[in-house]
């Protein structure tokens, strides 16, 4: 077994110096967080008797992760993003906020600037023969069930290869393909015509899946459709629903699946009447109930770097 020095005065003093915990200036919160994270890391090294080779393997892995731009993917994969959601839920419970459409993670592939349309939008701009027609529609309401007018419903999802427009390395999708921004009317209704998304996962030879291989875990997600719902009066909703029947629904590497976010998929005919070229299509009704602001403020707004086009 390895040596035990972590609890000794020397290491503890060293940790305080690393974070400059006793120094006068600097950001107190940053000092405390760094002190904790480095302490936990040191303790991990001691408890598992990590060899220098193993430590350097980890450090070099961080470089690989960064150079491949996969830090946000790993954050989803190690549950960080979902853990934040769990905390927000618990906060709501403490505040007594119940009901409303469940929130779930945003993911890294939102693009601001989709052209806004009134009540209804067609999202597919490029042919995708492997993806059948899909109609999504529903009503945006407040906690009282009353329709919310002028809500902006932003929708984005992948194509049949698992690629999003603006992030498609095959170059097959045009701008804002499978992305839309729909403004509700007085009835609070929105409707989009699009194609079925696919389940997809981490780049198979990328840094995230490479780590997951060590855990014997896959990096895949069930097919899903992302939503932002923004109004003046309620909290902004960030959510996704999954496509019912996807085998990965409760085996999502990002842990974003929630009860209440798996609406029924209904096979329908008469597609031409709703605006499709085909007769048969699938139909999903996804109603959205917004939650009130807390003391006049949206306590859930997340600031993070997002792409814009």
């Amino acid at each position, binding site marked *: 077994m390895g040596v035990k020095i972590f609890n000794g005065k020397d290491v503890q003093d060293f940790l305080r110096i690393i974070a400059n915990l006793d120094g006068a200036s600097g950001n107190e919160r940053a000092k405390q967080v760094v002190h904790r994270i480095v302490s936990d890391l040191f303790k991990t090294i001691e408890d598992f008797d990590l060899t220098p080779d193993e430590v350097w393997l980890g450090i070099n892995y961080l470089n690989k992760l960064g150079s491949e731009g996969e830090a946000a993917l790993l954050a989803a994969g190690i549950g960080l993003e979902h853990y934040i959601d769990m905390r927000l839920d618990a906060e709501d419970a403490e505040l007594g906020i119940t009901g409303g459409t469940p929130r779930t993670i945003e993911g890294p592939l939102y693009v601001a600037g989709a052209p806004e349309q009134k009540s209804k939008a067609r999202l597919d701009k490029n042919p995708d023969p492997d993806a059948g027609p899909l109609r999504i529609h529903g009503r945006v309401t407040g906690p009282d069930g009353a329709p919310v007018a002028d809500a902006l419903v932003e929708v984005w999802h992948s194509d049949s290869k698992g690629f999003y427009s*603006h992030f498609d390395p095959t170059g097959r999708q045009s701008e804002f393909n499978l992305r839309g921004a729909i403004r509700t009317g007085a009835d609070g209704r929105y409707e989009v015509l699009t194609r079925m998304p696919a389940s997809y996962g981490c780049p198979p030879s990328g840094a995230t899946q490479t780590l997951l*291989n060590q855990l014997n875990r896959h990096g895949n997600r069930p097919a899903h459709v992302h939503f932002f719902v923004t109004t003046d009066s309620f909290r902004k909703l960030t959510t996704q629903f999954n496509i019912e029947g996807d*085998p990965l629904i409760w085996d999502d590497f990002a842990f974003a699946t929630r009860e209440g976010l798996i609406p029924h998929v209904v096979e329908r005919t008469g597609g031409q009447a709703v605006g499709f070229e085909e007769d048969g299509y699938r139909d999903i009704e996804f109603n959205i109930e917004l939650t009130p602001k807390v003391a006049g403020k949206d306590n859930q707004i997340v600031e993070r770097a997002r792409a814009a086009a």
Partner: protein
Amino acid sequence: MPEDSSLRQPATRAHPARWRDVLYVLPQREGDLARLDELAVADAPVVTVIGKYNHGKSRLLNELIRRDAFAVADRRQTVHLAECRHAGVRWLDAPGLDADVAGEDDRHALRAVWLASDIRLFVHAAREGELDAVERALLEALRADSRRTRRETLIVVTQADQMEDDDALGRVMSAIADQVPGAGLLVVSSTRHRRGLEDGKTLLIQRSGIPELERALADALARVPAARAHEARLLLGEMRAELETVRRAEAETLSSLRQQQAAQRHVFDDGLETLLAAIGRDMEVVVALAGPDLALVADTGRERYATTAAKLERAHIQVAYSRACIHLDGFLAGHGVSGLPREQQTAAGSLNTVMVAVMGVSVKFRADLHRMFCEAPGRARLQAAFAHYFELSRSRAALRDRITESSVALDAADRALAALPPDTAP
């Protein structure tokens, strides 16, 4: 003073359209091409008198053509190329070769010496003694040209009458003879010749050296047609040989680049095929499980944090698939095929790889993996898709560019050879 205005053009401007293709490959042959143009239109033989100013060039010419056609003065007089016809010969008086070597005068002089002349009379005044460095350099070039083109250069020491006595003249002649060993020197006095003619003194005419010069000139003039034919053949032959050398070298380069291109592709194709076959064999074991594909059976919400047989199966095939991709990625990186071409890159760095573009990120189940890796058409599709990106890789694109350049150069050499007339018809 008669003057050929066409000679006012820059010294060595070859006919642009006729020789464009040749000049493109052999720009250094501009002067030779201009000379070929001269030879094509030349009729009468051309005798050019050259030398430093005030060495008696114009005066000598006047004696040779028996009239005062060329201006004679103490200061630098002959600033343009002056021309006169006499006895079936074009006589050219080149501007004096002096210090301002880059000036217009010297370009005229060069044109006279290098392009227009069949015979050069290199004039040096006896009173100046030895040849100076400029004269020696020019003479060296002229004599080298004579050996090559058979255009003759006669060295004429003028103003012999200005020497104190025959001894003094003898010393100068001997000094010059040492400077240009093997060259025949002619000594003349234009003054004596003129006086001899005016006074009807045959002896003076004899002693002027002009008759001897005229005999030497007549012999040289008789050799001009043969010399011209030789020179045209020589220039065309040299250029043809040079172009053929260029063409041969370019053809060899092109062929070697194409071999390299084919060999690289062969190595890539072979290596990838072998690797895909190995992955296919490993994948057979992964996907060849008996019974239904558990991965396709959805779990329930109650099992969200539980381990199920379906989850294990999904992890099992995904990890196997990931390992196959990591192998492929390593092979591709070894062939310079990692990042996407710039025009395909997206804002998400993690997706800008050939692996992602080819494999996609959609979830692969057992049947997908079997189709992709265990069946020949699936492997062939991957083979073709990776080969597509191999050809887009930086080193392959650079090789393609070099092949294009080489092929353009080969075409240029072919066009230049076609533009060159046959040896017999300059």
